[in-house]
Structure formats: C-alpha cells, structure tokens
C-alpha cells in the first residue's frame, strides 16, 4: 500500500516536472519569436541609417558608412536656411 502510494507520488512529481518543462520552452520560443517581431524592424531601421550599399539577398550591408545620414542632415539644414 505504502509502496503504491510512493509510486503514485513519484509519478505525480514526474508528470508535474514534465508539465513544467515544455511550458517553459514554449514560453521561451514565444518570447524569442516576439523579440524577433519586435526588434527586427527596429534593427532594420538602425542598420539602414549606417548602410551605404545593401544588396539582396545579403543579410547585412556590403558597405557601411555615415555618408547618407550626413547628406540627409545637410539637406535638412539647408532646406531650413533662410
């Protein structure tokens, strides 16, 4: 009787621990996907600000620089000049 109860208890513990593990990983995957969806566009914008040339299908720009940013800043300042 005691052994059976012990066995049931250990099974219950095992079930519970098994229940927690997938839940944890599911939540981690959910957060990773969410982070990709959230930070992907923001990262994209930041990379474009320092990209000179970026050809498809390269994951990152082939040339980096601040020329485009500087040019647009100069144009903005010039457009506001009297």
């Amino acid at each position, binding site marked *: 009787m005691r052994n059976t109860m012990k066995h049931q208890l250990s099974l219950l513990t095992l079930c519970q621990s098994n229940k*927690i593990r997938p839940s*944890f990983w599911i*939540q*981690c995957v*959910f*957060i990773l996907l*969410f*982070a990709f*969806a*959230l*930070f*992907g*566009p*923001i*990262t*994209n*914008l930041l*990379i*474009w600000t320092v990209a000179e040339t970026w050809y*498809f*299908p*390269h*994951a*990152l720009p082939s040339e980096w620089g601040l020329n485009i940013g500087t040019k647009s800043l100069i144009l903005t300042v010039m457009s506001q000049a009297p």
Partner: protein
Amino acid sequence: MRSSTSYNLWLIAPAALMVGLFFLYPLFFSLYSAITTDEGGLTLAHLEKAFELYSNDILFTIIIVLASVVLLAILSISIAALITLSPFRSIVSLLGFIYRIPLFIPFIVTAQMMRTFLAKNGLMNNAFIASGMLTPLETVSFLGWSGIIIVFVWKQLAFCTLLITGAMAALDESQIRAARNLGASRLRILFQIMLPQITPTIGVAMILSTVTIMSVLSVPLMIGTGTPTMIATDMAFRINSYGDYHVANALGLVSYLICAGLAWFYLRQSLKDKGAI
C-alpha cells in the same frame, strides 16, 4: 443648494467650452458639410459620390480593421496572460519590459521600419535566406494589405497589452488562488475566471485601437499598394488633389458612423465604471 449648482456649472464651464469649441464645432461642421451644398441646401450627392467611388475602400478599411482587432485581441490576451500567470518570473520581467517598446515609436517611423523590413528584399527575408529557411526565389513581399495589418498589430499591441495586463493584475487574487487550489489549469483559470471579468476592458482596448487604426494616414500610404486603400488616404486625396471637402467629409461621416457605435459602447462602459449608470 442653488448656489452650489451654479458654482458647479461655472466649474465645468471652461472644460465644456474647450470641448465645444475644439471638438464639437469641427465635428458638426464637417457633418454639416457632408450633407449640404455650397449654397447651404441639403443633399445626399456627396455621400452617393463617396460610395460610388470608394465603396471598395470602405469595405477594405472594415476588413483591415476587423482583422487587425482580432489579431490584436488574441496576441494581447496571450501576452497579458503570460505576464500574469507565468511562474517563470525572469521570462515575465523580460516580456514586461520589451512589449512596451512600440508605445514610444510613432506610426510614421513604424511604417518606415516595416517598409524596409517586410519588403521582398527586406531584412526579414534576408534573415530567412541567411538562416537557410528560404531561397531568394521563395521570398515574398508583405507590402500590401498583410503589411498594413502587421503594422497596426505591431504598433497597437503594446497599448492593448498594457490595458489588459492592468485589468488582469487588478483582479482579486484570492479567486485565482482558490481555482489553483481546486486543481484548475492556467488555461482554465484564464478562460473561465479572468477573461469573463475583464471583457469590458478588452472591449475598450479594441475600440480605442479601432479608432486609432481608422485615423492613421501614414501606414496605408507607405505600406499599401495603392488600390484598394483605406478611407483616411481617400480623404487626404480628395482634399489635397481636388480641394473637395464635401466628399472628404462624406467619407469622414462614414468613418464616424463606423466608430460611433463603438464609441457609444466605450462611453457607456466608462460611465458604468464610474457609477454614473
């Protein structure tokens, strides 16, 4: 008693004047303009013209709004439930920090980010190609109706989750503990105990999102493909290209009518919460 009433009236007069002058007057003026001619006679010609030219766009707007709101509801409830019910505090604190970021990014910046992210040659497809999940020929552009929905959901998710998480956190914790003690799973606690109690808050979050989505001009202009497009774009086009305020106001009237039912629900709910009804 009479002086007290008079004092109260004077107290609300400045606020009422501001609302009347800067909200009600433009509202009624645009409604009046939608159903009158230049000479002041009543007409339905502007509304007829609006429906004749833009009925597809009106339908498109309704579909976009409905799809966005459904996705918003599902995602924001999932995130709020995860934050409230998850036993893993490190995950919760991380999620609680990152989900709020879109709140501080304007719509126009979001549209610009998504335009380069969701395009066929955008970072999303580049990342999939680099990871070997797609080949360059298999890539698809999400610019168009799907992109518009993605942008609206991305931007409004933080706002809706904030409201719903607040409502979930304000619930009586003893009910959740009692349900847990009786063996209820987290999913059951969410669907049978939490959601029925926070339905009004979910409704309010969705209504406010609907009104925001209806009013955004930059997203359909930057993400959309041109035709069909949303009502806000058509209104801007009528005014900027033709100076046609009557048809623009008629389109505005259609937007008002779509939002009016929702606004009625929101005002009724907020008055009920304050005990006025």
